[in-house]
């Protein structure tokens, strides 16, 4: 059996826009790739960059953070903070040799089920190209 590399993508979706967008993609029977594991957070501003490092440690090959479009945040400005944070975190990971294609961010609103499918497909293709994340994955899971 030939085994093609199937990446693990952890997606942090904001409760108000992107999670609803993903829900819409599901209810409208859109086929998006099953590599993505969704974690619902209340706001993209809730996502601590430590989550990202931890996900990469524990077996994720790529991470997607998704929130409302700028200006549409339920909490008014959470996604603006998130944007600054992940811009920096991406550069930092790039500096230690982690391919920046592994860190993705997108703005998906509740009505953009089709866009969510496109985003997921693009992320999975990008991460497939760079291959499995084996740089600082945790080797001893039960220590």
């Amino acid at each position, binding site marked *: 059996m030939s085994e093609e590399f199937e990446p693990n993508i952890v997606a942090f979706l904001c409760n108000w826009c992107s999670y609803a967008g993903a829900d819409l993609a599901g209810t409208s029977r859109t086929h998006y790739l099953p590599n993505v594991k969704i974690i619902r957070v209340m706001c993209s501003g809730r996502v601590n960059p430590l989550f990202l490092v931890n996900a990469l440690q524990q077996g994720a090959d790529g991470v997607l953070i998704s929130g409302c479009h700028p200006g549409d945040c339920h909490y008014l400005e959470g996604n603006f903070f998130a944007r*600054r*944070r992940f811009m920096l975190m991406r550069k930092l990971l790039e*500096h*230690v040799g*982690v391919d920046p294609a592994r860190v993705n*961010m997108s703005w998906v609103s509740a009505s953009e089920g089709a866009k969510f499918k496109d985003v997921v497909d693009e992320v999975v293709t990008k991460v497939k190209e760079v291959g499995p994340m084996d740089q600082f994955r945790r*080797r001893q899971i039960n220590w």
Partner: protein
Amino acid sequence: MVDEKKLQDKARETLSRDDVRRLIGWKRSTYGYEAAPAVLTDASEADQLIFDPTCVQNPASFISLEEKKPVPRGQEPDTRKIAVMVKGCDSRAIVQQLVEKAYNRDDVVVLGIPCIGVIDRRKAEKLFGETGKQVKAKVDKEKVAVDIGGDVKTVDRKDILMDKCLRCRYPNPLVSDFLLGDEVEKWADDDFADVDEFEKMTPEEKWKHWDEQLSKCIRCYSCKSVCPMCYCVECVVTQQKPQWTRRSTDISENAAYHLQRAWHLAGRCIECMECQRVCPVDIPIMELNRKMTREVKEMFDYEPGVDAEAEPLLASYNPQDPEDYIM
């Protein structure tokens, strides 16, 4: 350079003030290329204070370290100030702590010292070997004269000063109540050539470099203990619930620790290079911080520790921030 007599007189005067609790400065260490930090409470101790290029340590680290004990009922809390001697780079730490409201400007008395440069212990040990003798030093515009137990050696200052001094843009304190000595002229500039050099590597080479360096880490947490910006009462790396980084020293946890350390200093690091100086296994920690400093400057046009009125970088935003990678 600073006249030591004048410095001690000013320290004595400051310590005898009723509203000053203690003074943090430098004193001669028993041996080696670095002076020891001195925490004085009495004016009579002031004559041990010194300032010369061996005074590397950043005294601004100590201000927020003091344990805040609960005040017994019926007693007033001690609201006296802390006096602290700072070089130009150390003063940026104070500015950044003020930006973050770690304490109020009225809680500290800042004795500023214009500085031309301080000695890098590692460079000195490479030149003259380790020493068990007391070291004094003098610096002028060209040379550094190092006096190792009476044996004076002169070297070009580019060969022995800390890297931060070779790209120092703030030789004069940015915040000070009293300036000890005359202001000095800025003689260096920062062009981030070291970061550019590093960026030429491919991702595989970068990871190979960090794999090698971070595997050495023994997680003594010296870098975070000495950092003037790491003053949280409970640090995220040592907290148990939730435990973000495990305590084992394998490359996974070490990388996670150093990434989160660099990340927490993004837009806050004032490049005093204390973390790299104290590292017992010589990890080039500043390479991570330098990268962050440059990105912060290029993307958000922000420089930490310069303007005490500024908003902290990550607690503010601009709707026009770059977002070229966002889908």
